[in-house]
């Protein structure tokens, strides 16, 4: 008997071991852990918004491997342009990631010219390719077939010093053909050229962050010591992109800055909305090592959303137009979907593309149900169609009940429909005090209107009763006094 039991137990143990191994340990197919920040600035787990779908390397396309690719851009017609800096060529793919052509040089004044370590490229609506040809100190403008249209060389201007080296790194172009160039060693802002290549001026300067400790230290130092100290100059921009309204989004990698992303209006002022719980700056909680996010690329996604690429933790942060952090994906590593040295982020249809210089490939990310729903709801909200957005927000909440933006979204729609009391609960869940106040004010006024009559009746009745009791007490007391005096 005991033996049979023992045998059974052994068998059970073996089977349970097998069963444990049969179920995959990780529920998420992503090689990274997605998270988001809550109101209390804690990183809380979140469903994955984007999952890696595939990677594209030079060999996959049937050409030689990429070498230190520098930038990727998707033209408005959907063609994908990869700037393969190390091989001095531009690889053009169709929306289905099939190779269309390779541009590795162009004809200029009868001779064949090549690129020299180009840093960035941009393609406009008319399929014109703008290349920041860093090594050759020029910006090259080609048409879609690779024929030269014009070059922008070192600008002649009174405000530039004679030793000025023009080394364009990244660029973007607005719909009238003005070129915005982020150049190396230029901390006055983004260089702006008109459509004929003439230098107009700088837009959007980064401000120097005041460091009072350093300031006091400087006051106490001698002149010789001061001469040895580092200069406080504004940081350079790291990248730029443009939205359909012509506002330039720019990033800088200043580690101390709380505003590393800027949205510049035509006069160069920063007009990015920052209405979220915390600064728009990538990771808000980090240990000293590896430190704050280093934002090296920004991509305007449309409907007010934009993604930024963080080179510290190799993650992508996406925000809506009000500055709410929508989702985070990506991470460091060697698997498909994690990144080694990301340099550029792009959008192709629903997909996000991240160019990895370290692994010499392009990673294609695909939205999950959660990510797609969030995008959809944010877009509807941006277009003012809040009522339609509500159902999608509710679906988002089923996928992630900690999604504060969804609560706020539902609350705002309820507010629009004058369901103030219901909206209150949603705003409280979303910790949106400003909207809560608006909803509460309306709710309070409604309640006052409705119950003012009742309230007044009760108050008057109370006053009458009080007076009557007073009179009664007085009357009784007088009676007693009278009685004692013997009047009755």
């Amino acid at each position, binding site marked *: 008997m005991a033996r049979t039991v023992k045998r059974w137990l052994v068998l059970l143990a073996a089977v349970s071991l097998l069963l444990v191994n049969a179920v995959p340990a990780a529920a998420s197919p992503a090689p990274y852990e997605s998270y988001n920040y809550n109101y*209390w600035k804690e990183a809380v787990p979140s469903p994955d918004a984007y999952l890696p779908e595939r990677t594209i390397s030079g060999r996959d396309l049937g050409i030689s491997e990429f070498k230190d690719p520098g930038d990727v851009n998707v033209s408005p017609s959907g063609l994908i342009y990869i700037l393969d800096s190390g091989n001095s060529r531009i690889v053009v793919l169709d929306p289905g990631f099939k190779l269309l052509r390779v541009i590795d040089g162009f004809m200029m004044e009868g001779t064949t010219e090549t690129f020299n370590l180009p840093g960035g490229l941009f393609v406009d609506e008319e399929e014109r390719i703008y290349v920041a040809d860093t090594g050759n100190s020029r910006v090259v403008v080609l048409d879609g077939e690779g024929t030269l249209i014009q070059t922008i060389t070192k600008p002649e201007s009174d405000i530039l010093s004679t030793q000025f080296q023009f080394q364009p790194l990244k660029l973007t172009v607005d719909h009238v053909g003005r070129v915005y160039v982020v150049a190396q060693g230029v901390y006055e802002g983004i260089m702006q050229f008109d459509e004929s290549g003439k230098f107009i001026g700088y837009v959007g300067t980064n401000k120097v962050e005041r460091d009072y400790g350093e300031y006091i230290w400087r006051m106490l130092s001698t002149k010789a010591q001061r001469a040895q100290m580092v200069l406080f100059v504004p940081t350079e921009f790291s990248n730029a992109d443009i939205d359909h309204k012509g506002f330039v989004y720019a990033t800088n990698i200043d580690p101390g800055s709380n505003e590393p992303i800027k949205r510049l209006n035509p006069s160069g002022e920063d007009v990015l909305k920052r209405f979220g719980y915390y600064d728009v700056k990538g990771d808000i909680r980090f240990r000293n090592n590896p430190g704050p996010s280093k934002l090296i690329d920004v991509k305007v996604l449309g409907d007010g959303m934009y993604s930024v690429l963080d080179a510290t933790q190799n993650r992508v942060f996406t925000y809506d137009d009000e500055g709410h952090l929508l989702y985070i994906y990506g991470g460091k590593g060697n698997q498909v979907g994690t990144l080694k040295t990301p340099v550029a982020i792009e959008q192709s249809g629903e997909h996000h593309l991240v160019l990895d210089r370290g692994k010499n490939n392009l990673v294609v990310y695909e939205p999950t149900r959660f990510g797609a729903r969030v995008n959809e709801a944010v877009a509807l909200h941006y277009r003012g169609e809040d009522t339609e957005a509500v159902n999608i927000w509710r679906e988002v909440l089923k996928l992630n009940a900690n999604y504060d933006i969804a609560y706020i979204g539902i609350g705002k729609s309820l507010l629009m429909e004058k369901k103030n009391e219901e909206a209150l609960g949603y705003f*409280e869940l979303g910790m949106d*005090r*400003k909207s*809560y*106040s*608006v909803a*509460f*004010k309306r709710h*309070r006024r409604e309640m006052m209107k409705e119950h003012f009559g009742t309230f007044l009746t009760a108050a008057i009745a109370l006053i009458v009763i009080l007076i009557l009791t007073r009179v009664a007490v007085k009357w009784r007391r007088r009676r007693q006094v009278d009685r004692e005096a013997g009047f009755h």
Partner: protein
Amino acid sequence: MKQDFIKFPLHLIFHPIDAFWDLKSDNRGRLLVAFAALALTIVMMILQKQYAGFLVNYIDPRTINSIIEIATVAVPFFLWCTANWAVTTLMEGEGKFREIVLATGYSLIPIILIYAPMILISRFMVQEETAFYYLFNSIAFFWFVLLLFIGMMTVHQYTVIRTIITMVLTLIVMGIIVFLGALVFSMLQQLYEFGYNIYRELIFRT
């Protein structure tokens, strides 16, 4: 009963100079009232964190802990009384320890009286009106400080300047007591560990 527990405390907060003198010379203060005031202040602090309106309540509900709340009010209270007694004994203060406790306890009454309605009203406030909430809370605090000041001055029969000096000194002494306390605590812990190690050595060696 009503005289001692309701009328006199209410009279005190509006006429502190008179009333603190009565409290000292006519022996009208009740320790029970002082401790009740302390207890109610703690209750108000807890209630405020838990029940103040959403628009003024920035406390993470997960961090509310009543034990810590009790400690953050009661410990400074007794520390203040002890430190003040220690300082004023050396500085010719006429107050007894009991009188110091009474004066400090009675001074807390405005906090209770203002906090209680403000917690309720804050639940019906909108963003623009929250300024009043903060205003009244500051009034409660400054009223408390003023009462404490007059109380100390009357109880110890000090001049204004001397009262300010002793109050500042009291704060410094409070810091010293905390420091010494931490020191003694850490030494005791090391002593205990030392004893425990010897005990262990003896046990395992035999």
